[in-house]
């Protein structure tokens, strides 16, 4: 059994609250662990709503910020302790696609600037012709042709086109892992399938794994292999995507799934739900289950100590809830 491709061990990230800083501290991510294996290529979904810590996780993995405690290991090497050469290798093998398909382009340059940067830095080509070929190959994978788009400015392309170009850019490096942070949430509904389909094809044909970060459980359900559901910085439920979504165990996940509007006018929400007026639920509390204020099945012990992950019988399914204690 080879070492895993990426291993996140008990990572905690706390913002603010330090010695010289003002403001309360925010526990963005707490004791988060995740493993991605080299083989087979998989789409691992990190699902969560606002405040769940998923954006923080993306930033940690991409090395934009460092963990407060815990480790992020890539092929056994601590991401925070990499030297220049290792860092370059890391950038080559771990790439990203972000949510906003406009912001990621520098408005001063034509769109091919994003490709040129990569080619130059990673020496992907020795001549301009070769560079052009490399770009063309990447664009073809996402269903575009260089001559139609490369000389344009960002505002001249549609959101869907820009996002596909970003995927092409990531692909060009032939990475092992692409972190996709809400790649389709700002793309029109009718164009989302195209981008999700590209992700699936990259997984199947090119063995590229994805870390698909999203708040939309429906798309996660359609393309994810494995899913981690976060709530306010802690893992709530983990497992095989179909198992978790068809059979949710954690009270939060159950509430979440039942609140997704079903596109069928005959199946309307039957019961009303209420949220406690204190909807601002994040506190400085580091112990106790985060979902306590909203949970209909809560018990006293839930507020004193955070429940660990319990494995469900014989399935690829773990839940952080005392209801399932063995």
């Amino acid at each position: 059994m080879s070492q895993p491709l990426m291993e996140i061990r008990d990572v905690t990230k706390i913002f603010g609250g330090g010695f010289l800083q003002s403001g309360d501290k925010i526990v963005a991510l707490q004791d988060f662990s995740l493993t991605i294996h080299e083989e087979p290529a998989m789409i691992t979904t990190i699902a969560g709503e606002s405040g769940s810590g998923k954006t923080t996780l993306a930033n940690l993995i991409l090395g934009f910020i460092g963990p407060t405690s815990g480790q992020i290991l890539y092929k056994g090497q601590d991401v925070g302790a990499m030297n220049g050469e290792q860092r370059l290798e890391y950038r080559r093998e771990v790439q990203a696609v972000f949510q906003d398909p406009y912001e990621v382009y520098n408005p001063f340059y034509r769109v091919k600037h994003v490709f040129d940067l990569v080619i130059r830095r990673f020496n992907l080509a020795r001549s301009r012709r070769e560079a052009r070929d490399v770009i063309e190959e990447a664009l073809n994978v996402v269903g575009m042709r260089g001559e139609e788009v490369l000389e344009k400015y960002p505002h001249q392309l549609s959101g869907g086109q820009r996002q596909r170009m970003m995927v092409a850019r990531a692909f060009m490096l032939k990475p092992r892992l692409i972190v996709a942070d809400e790649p389709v949430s700002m793309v029109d509904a009718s164009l989302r399938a195209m981008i999700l389909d590209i992700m699936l094809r990259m997984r199947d044909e090119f063995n590229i794994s994805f870390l698909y970060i999203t708040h939309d459980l429906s798309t996660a359900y359609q393309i994810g292999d494995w899913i981690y559901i976060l709530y306010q910085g802690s893992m709530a439920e983990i497992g095989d995507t179909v198992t978790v979504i068809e059979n949710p165990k954690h009270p939060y996940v159950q509430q979440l799934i039942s609140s997704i509007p079903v596109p069928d006018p005959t199946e309307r929400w039957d019961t009303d739900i209420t949220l406690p007026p204190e909807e601002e639920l994040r506190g400085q509390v580091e112990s106790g289950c985060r979902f306590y204020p909203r949970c209909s099945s809560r018990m006293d012990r839930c507020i004193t100590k955070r429940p660990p992950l319990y494995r469900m019988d014989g399935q690829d399914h773990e839940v952080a809830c005392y209801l399932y204690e063995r």
Partner: protein
Amino acid sequence: MGAQANEQNLVLQVKDLRVHYATPTGDVIACNGVDFQVYRGETLGLVGESGCGKTTAAMAILRLVQPPGRILHGQVLVDGVDMMSLNEGELRQARWRQVALIPQGAMNSLNPVMRIKDQIADGIQTHEGQQPREELKERILELLNMVGLPGRVYNMYPHELSGGMKQRVCIAMAIALHPSLVIADEPTSALDVVVQRVVAQTMLEVKDRLGVSMILIGHDMGLQAQLVDRIAVMYAGNMMEIAPVQDIFEQPLHPYTQLLIDAIPSIKERKPLKVTEGLTHDLRNPPPGCVFHPRCASPRATARCHEEVPVLHEVAPRHYVACHPE
């Protein structure tokens, strides 16, 4: 379900609305002769993707279109009165009292340095003149109650409230003067799923108790299915299909509507993704004939679609489509 379809019960009638945006290389046609109606007591869903003109239409109803946009043509009858014929003073009276708008991102546009009570009071007093303090307070508390917010919110500042609560404040402001029609533009798109459900419930409740008619602009078909009575589908400035919500989902007649319905990712079963070619035309240069024909994959498409613009006509009871018949 739904109101009687006759002239007396019309709250809003939009006829041949044309709105253009000037750009140096030509006019962008935002609304191209849009027709639709809203009956008393019903909720009309206005759906479409980016650039379809739904927000522009909403702004045009209230004559809030700013340069470089301009309304070329059209009648907007609210309770029988043509908004286009009103002068500035009459228009200001009509806005908020007859038609209220909850614009996109309203919850982020609350004045951060004013308490909630003052913001709502401001809105009321601007239109109705100075009010006796006790009565005003009663009214505001009643409004807050109607949207499910606790009385404490009266004295709070926007930053002390969560997203869902802020949005409900915006709903309260919109119904403060008991308008006949409320237009809500993407009221829940920035909210988490569970909070979205709470806000959606609030809107339904408000509608039931006040009997106010609503236009719900959005792109989330699932949410539309839960909330509206009829749906109007727009594409690139044109109205493509209007029908009762059930008919839209069970029997979408326009190819674009079918595309939108197909694109909804299901949370119930995993299916292969339906990928569609996304090339939308330049909005300054619409193709001749039906504006959707470059993307139309319908087997019923003929040469006529390239030449002749289809007119919105009734194909089944209360079901209108802008598509050439066989």
